């Protein structure tokens, strides 16, 4: 072989390796290489028949309150609710034979058949709600290319007690421990069991304790589906929960829906999640936070020039349209709209900071990972540009962001499902006591986020009753009951509403202490 041909061979080898590495990198990019189960289409959404507004009122709501010091009262309330739920759920196995026809049917015809079967089979008011056409349709179409499993909430499915024993309930959680929006692993590990240990001491959930199965989704939707599949098919969890990351949550929620597994997460985007039968947001979605966010900019900050910067993912298209619509309606001048990569390069972020400065934006609506946020703010500061960063989200208001990003992030403000540590003792004194008891130190805000989410789920499990199955769980959620924790906002759902929160907390960075503080609790507007 001549030297020239050897060089060409090596160059080709390098090119192929580089292409493979790039392909792997592109697999993490929005819209490229995403899992097939996470590919909603417009027709999916149309068939799902989701309501135009998720704010519709919930009739006949009942509250399961585990807030503050009243948690001891929760089991009683939950038991009461559970009775009805369980009876409805447990009446369903007899109609199990209807499931295959419902599944094999395609489009609205199959859905309609399933809905009718449900209504006929149970005759219970709650079950009729759960058999409503739109939600059944969503289950039929939401799985993308995969055929959905029997829908637990429908009478067509047998009672599914996967992950539930007489003494244990197994719950799967995925969160980014690595990747662009990482939770510190130690903090996450310490916090994930605190509420369940606290609850176990109070007798558990009808004698059952909760066991958490955790997987790192690496802030990557493909990986998220993979770990959710592991947790469902190998670990046999009862329900799935997503901690953060809109793409990961969307991907996993769609997979869970295709398998008939209940899935809960803090509110993120609605696009891709609307109409999923088994999905429930435990806090406001980005869209739902926008009215309060815009009113804060106009009425409190009194700024007019807004820039909108989002992660470059199709899952946020609707979010971008939503904030644009609300901002324009409020008379704000949108001076720049842009998308940045999930793992944006130094060049990209410096260019973006420079472009934002050039646009003259006074407030930057930001929906990206904490790492991108900190780097963008740092690059902005390097360009003598310090706007007010503001946005919805779950992770940008964490104290680790202030610790690493101050002073560049300035008085950044982010809505959050949970308050910050400065007010938690007033809202829920049990948190710090429990954290101290089980971990031997002061609880942090990551633990608080887990505590709040666990508390919501605990209330839901109580409401599902002693005869716990996926059917009774979904039935309890769809019953219209309100779940109050005094940490997360009150949520309630029904047969079609899956985005059931109506308020959020607003946090502000306090760079003198390098922490976030709570400037509004359970707010709906300003």
């Amino acid at each position: 072989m001549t030297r020239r041909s050897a060089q060409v061979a090596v160059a080709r080898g390098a090119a192929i390796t580089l292409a493979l590495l790039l392909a792997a990198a592109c697999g993490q990019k929005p819209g490229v290489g995403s899992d097939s189960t996470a590919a909603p289409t417009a027709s999916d959404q149309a068939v799902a028949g989701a309501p135009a507004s998720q704010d519709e009122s919930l009739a006949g709501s009942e509250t399961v309150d585990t807030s503050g010091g009243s948690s001891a009262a929760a089991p009683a309330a939950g038991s009461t609710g559970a009775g009805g739920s369980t009876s409805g759920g447990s009446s369903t196995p007899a109609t199990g034979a209807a499931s295959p026809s419902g599944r094999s049917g395609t489009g609205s015809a199959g859905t309609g058949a399933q809905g009718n079967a449900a209504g006929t089979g149970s005759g219970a008011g709650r079950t009729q709600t759960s058999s409503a056409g739109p939600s059944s349709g969503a289950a039929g179409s939401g799985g993308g290319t995969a055929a959905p499993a029997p829908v637990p909430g429908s009478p067509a499915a047998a009672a599914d007690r996967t992950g539930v024993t007489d003494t244990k309930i197994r719950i799967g959680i995925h969160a980014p421990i690595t990747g662009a929006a990482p939770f510190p692993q130690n903090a996450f590990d310490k916090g994930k069991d605190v509420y369940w240990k606290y609850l176990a001491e109070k007798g558990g959930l009808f004698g059952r304790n909760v066991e958490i199965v955790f997987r790192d989704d690496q802030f990557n939707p493909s990986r998220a589906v993979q770990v959710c599949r592991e947790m469902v098919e190998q670990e046999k969890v009862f329900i799935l929960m997503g901690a953060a990351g809109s793409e990961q949550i969307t991907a996993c929620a769609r997979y869970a829906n295709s398998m008939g597994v209940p899935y809960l997460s803090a509110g993120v985007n609605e696009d891709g999640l609307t109409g999923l039968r088994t999905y429930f947001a435990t806090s406001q979605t980005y869209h739902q936070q926008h009215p309060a966010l815009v009113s804060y900019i106009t009425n409190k900050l009194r700024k007019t020039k807004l820039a909108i910067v989002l992660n470059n993912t199709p899952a946020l298209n609707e979010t971008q349209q939503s904030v644009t619509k609300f901002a324009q309606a409020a008379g704000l001048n949108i001076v720049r709209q842009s998308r940045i990569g999930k793992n944006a390069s130094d060049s990209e972020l410096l260019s973006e900071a420079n472009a934002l400065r050039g646009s003259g934006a006074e407030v930057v609506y930001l929906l990206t990972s904490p790492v991108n946020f900190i780097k963008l703010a740092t690059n902005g500061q390097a360009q003598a540009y310090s706007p007010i960063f503001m946005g919805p989200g779950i992770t940008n208001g964490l104290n680790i962001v202030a610790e690493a990003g101050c002073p560049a992030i300035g008085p950044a403000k982010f809505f959050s499902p949970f308050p910050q540590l400065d007010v938690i003792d007033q809202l829920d004194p049990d948190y710090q006591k429990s954290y101290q008891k089980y971990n031997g130190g002061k609880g942090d805000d990551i633990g608080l986020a887990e505590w709040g989410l666990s508390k919501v789920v605990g209330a839901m499990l109580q409401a599902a009753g002693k005869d716990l199955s996926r059917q009774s769980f979904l039935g309890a959620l769809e019953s219209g009951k309100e779940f109050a924790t005094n940490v997360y906002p009150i949520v309630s759902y029904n047969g079609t509403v899956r985005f059931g929160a109506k308020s959020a907390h607003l946090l502000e960075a306090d760079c003198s202490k390098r922490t976030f503080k709570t400037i509004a609790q359970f707010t709906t507007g300003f």
Partner: protein
Amino acid sequence: MPRFLASRSALVGTAIVVVVAAVMVASGQRQALVIGVITGAGYGLVALGLVLIYKSSGVFNFAQGEFGTVAVYTLYGVHDLAGVPLLPAMLVGLAAAAAMALATERVIIRPLFSAPRVTLLVATAGVSLLAISLELWLGEARIRFIQPALGRLDRVSVFGVQVSDQRLLVLAALLMLAVLLGLFFSRTNLGLAILGVSQEPVATELMGISVRRLSSFTWALTGVLAGLAGMLTAPVVGSFAPGFLTTTSLIPAFTAAVLGGMTSLPGAFVGGVVVGVAQSLAVSAPIFYENIPGPGAVMVFVLLVVVLALRPQGLLGKSS
């Protein structure tokens, strides 16, 4: 005229770069040009190490990024956690990177040296993956934040873009190293010996030069270069995590090295800047970012494919 501009092809390549820069200035993308130059300097630093190894042994070193990441972790541990002053801590970081490079040469490269180059390429990729796994295992899978050694942000402003002292330091280090290494390979006996080993190892050995020692020296040197790249660029970005330099810079740096000609050290500098400018243009010009998702990464890939297809020897490289 500088030596690397002596050939006609190099002149053409340089002329293209100059014309592109002029068009960017004329079309209002002046800031993208500045941003590209200052961010591309980081790629150029990593590319220097890649070129050094390829020039001396014909190996595409996919572990280059991890040599630098290990240096950053060491700097963080010694300076930020243990409180050792910055300069001694940087020396410890450089030593760690050099040690890792030496270990790679001794354990992986030397036993496989007579194997096809593609085998060595894959072996270095394996070293990189192993290093990332170790960083995840030992260093916890989380992002760490690091402050720049030079904190002033507004010393220089070019076309309205403020260039921080830390970025100036990266640019200066790149320029200086490119020139010094260029002189080293063209003017010193040791440099010429390294080139001799890469072209005719047996003949070089017969001349009484120890190929093994030269190989060790070259790998240690590339470790030091990677360490410098990591420790200078991480504070610019402000954070790092396992696989930091591999994930942020390796592919653009490879593109820079290929663009520069793989064997040309000044070419690595030019290639780094060109890649940085292309990336910056892609994310700044509406025609790109409004139509292409992830335009920066796409631009790097397109640039790599175009160079390999049209001019495999790169802008400043020599065709065989």
